[in-house]
């Protein structure tokens, strides 16, 4: 108990802050912050596995998040029959061609020794393959995108419950990580960072511009929900009774019946959106707890010990007979898969998929700030980082406004400097993130909750 005191204290402060937001701003805001904190926590757990356990730097988090989101679309949206009949055949055929191309390249790689001719053969296969695939897929893609472009214009998905996408998102992200890992893991740390960053940009470019698959920048809206809809809730009896019961003391104070009914209605509307958010919180909390149990178990298992050994001294671990390359690849895939889950969760919560919103600042660098600030190598630290940094990210605008008002109190309200500063309040969040990161890295390089390994 005592040795975990700092963990408990840090989490209590965090929960206290969120509750304070609930009391002073609104429970709706507090819960939406809490939900995104949970999603950020899943992302930081993924990044922490790679960076904290194994020392692998991955700046491609944005790409895996987007792939998770794509999974949510492909799983939950109903299939568009017309689009399938218009161009589905071409797409399927191109898919087979791609598989064939990959198999051919693999065959050449295995069968022949490394030589210039082999490289040329592979290059020819790839170039020819791309040209053929373009010829095959072009008419199909055009046909698909012409099917009711205002509403669909894409193939749609499988029409399954969106919850399944959390697993599929993990598979997608893991698959991409496998390919990237095979290609890039041999690089030195900072090159791996740049390479993953650039590859994630390529992923986003593809998601943005392949309209037949993702609708691209036209966005997919109105995804299915695992939680009830507010409008339906507002008309169910048990929910109205529940709200009535919760606010009984407050409602009893109002003597007039009509006024009381109006207040109740207002409360029901507010309550319904809080209730929906609570449903999401419950679902997300389950994911976070399951992942936390697994990652904690892994951290203290022999496997976790081996990962730390590899992280701390690659050569020594290699000399002890540990397959460093294989383990790196494994942990790269695992961590990315967790990020993929978070990506699917995010889209599930929003109910919409907007490829244009994936930007490295928000989905890669912010997550890294969370991991570093929270404490890399320590799961509780990483989760705390997710909570604290996301909380600051959202609440920095009000804090910034307060600070601006405080420092410019002596100035007139119409003074150009004050007006300008108040206009630029939204950008104070970047300043706070940057300063926070710099200060933590300088004075507490292991994060708020540092890594602590107990030998059991």
């Amino acid at each position: 108990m005592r040795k975990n005191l700092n963990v408990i204290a840090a989490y209590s402060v965090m929960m206290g802050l969120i509750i304070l937001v609930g009391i002073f701003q609104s429970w709706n805001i507090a819960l939406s912050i809490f939900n995104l904190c949970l999603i950020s926590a899943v992302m930081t757990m993924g990044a922490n596995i790679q960076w904290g356990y194994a020392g692998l730097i991955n700046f491609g988090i944005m790409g895996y998040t987007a792939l998770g989101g794509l999974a949510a679309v492909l799983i939950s949206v109903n299939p568009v029959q017309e689009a399938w009949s218009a161009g589905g055949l071409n797409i399927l055929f191109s898919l087979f061609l791609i598989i064939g191309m990959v198999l051919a390249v693999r065959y050449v790689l295995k069968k022949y020794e490394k030589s210039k001719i082999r490289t040329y053969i592979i290059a020819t296969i790839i170039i020819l393959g791309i040209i053929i695939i373009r010829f095959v897929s072009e008419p199909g893609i055009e046909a698909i995108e012409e099917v009711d472009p205002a509403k669909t214009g894409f193939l749609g998905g499988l029409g399954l419950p969106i919850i399944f996408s959390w697993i599929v998102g993990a598979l997608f992200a893991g698959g991409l990580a496998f390919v990237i890992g095979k290609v890039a893991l041999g690089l030195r740390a900072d090159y791996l960072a740049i390479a993953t960053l650039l590859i994630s940009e390529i992923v986003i470019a593809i998601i943005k511009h392949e309209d037949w698959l993702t609708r691209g920048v036209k966005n997919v809206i109105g995804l299915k929900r695992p939680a009830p809809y507010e409008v339906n809730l507002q008309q169910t009896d048990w929910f109205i009774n529940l709200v009535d019961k919760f606010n009984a003391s407050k409602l009893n104070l109002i003597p007039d019946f009509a006024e009381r009914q109006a207040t109740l209605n207002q409360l029901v509307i507010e309550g319904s959106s809080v209730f929906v958010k609570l449903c999401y919180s419950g679902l997300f909390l389950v994911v976070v707890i399951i992942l936390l149990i697994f990652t904690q178990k892994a951290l203290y298992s022999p496997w976790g010990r081996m990962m730390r050994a590899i992280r701390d001294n690659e050569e020594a671990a290699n000399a002890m007979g540990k397959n460093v390359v294989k383990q790196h690849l494994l942990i790269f895939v695992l961590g990315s898969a967790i990020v993929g889950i978070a990506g699917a969760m995010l889209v599930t919560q929003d109910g919409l998929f907007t490829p244009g919103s994936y930007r490295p600042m928000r989905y890669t660098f912010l997550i890294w700030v969370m991991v570093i600030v929270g404490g890399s190598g320590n799961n509780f630290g990483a989760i705390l980082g997710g909570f604290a940094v996301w909380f600051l990210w959202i609440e920095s605008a009000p804090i910034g406004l307060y600070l601006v008002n405080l420092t410019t109190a002596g100035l007139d309200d119409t003074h150009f400097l004050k007006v300008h500063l108040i206009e630029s309040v939204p950008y104070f969040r970047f300043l706070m993130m940057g300063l926070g990161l710099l200060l933590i890295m300088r004075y507490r390089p292991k994060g708020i909750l540092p890594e602590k390994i107990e030998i059991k």
Partner: protein
Amino acid sequence: MDFLNAIILLLNYIFVPALTYGSQLALGAIFVTLIYGILRFANFATGDMMSFGTMFTILFTWYFQSIGINLGVLPTALLAIPFAIIFMVGYMLIIDNFVFKYYRSNKSPPVQLAMVSIGVMFVTQAVVRIIIGPSDRRFFDGEKFIIKAGEFKEITGLNEGLAIKSTQLITVIVTMALVSALFWFLNKTKTGKSMRAYSDNEDLALLSGIDPKKIVMITWIIAGILATIGGALYGLDKSFKPFTYFNNMLPIFAAAIVGGIGNPFGAFLGGYVIAFSEILLTYAYRKFFMYVLPESMEPGGLIQLLSTDYKFAVSFSILVIVLLYRPSGIFKGKVL
């Protein structure tokens, strides 16, 4: 005649834009490569440092415009750049003193320095947005074109026009002058040679009496000059928007690595490699083939290898291929 038209077409839509864009990338890439070679970390704040320098250029341009100073046909920004450089170098030296110096003297691993540079990136981005705002700004004045497409057609009597913007010419001339001066400095002067020695082997350089503090300071000064001029030229040619500058960091990194990181000449050529491949692969060649081929063989489609949406993706794919097959870059930099 058709053949001439085809050449002019390529010059107008591929060669001139790619040369300009390549020059802008090259300056950024040399900046990245110098920081990497001498200070030994990947600077993720590159794009934002460039936007910081450009911001000062814009502020000085506005000031000069308000008191009525201008350069006639040339953009006022050219006059503002030297003043902006002073502020930019000051900012870089302050950052180095308060942030990077600590990790350098602790001999922290490069990854940690890269992380710190992300902190600097956040702060710089915030400062730029707080001071000048996130919106799109144009600060070009003076004569816009050297040759307009219409005039060119009249003079030569060809079907295709060749338009050259004055910013394009300025970009290329300034880049060439700056890069030649830089290479002269690195190869001929004593300080430049000691910088190269320090980059090549730090311990040996220290043994032979090279002052590391001086080297680091000069590196930041050169970096400040490159960042400000590169950023200002990009802003003059296109427009200034903090978010675009942040995104430009990616092709700049690609250029530096493709050219062989730590190798300034490689970075310089890498900028053009990236720019030309981006534009060559995403240009629609339909019109070109219409001129070159006989009428019966006229192409049906756009003859575009990749859609322009994938412009960035091209440079990143080149980078991935280079990293796989020649990790030290085309022109032999440090082995990664």
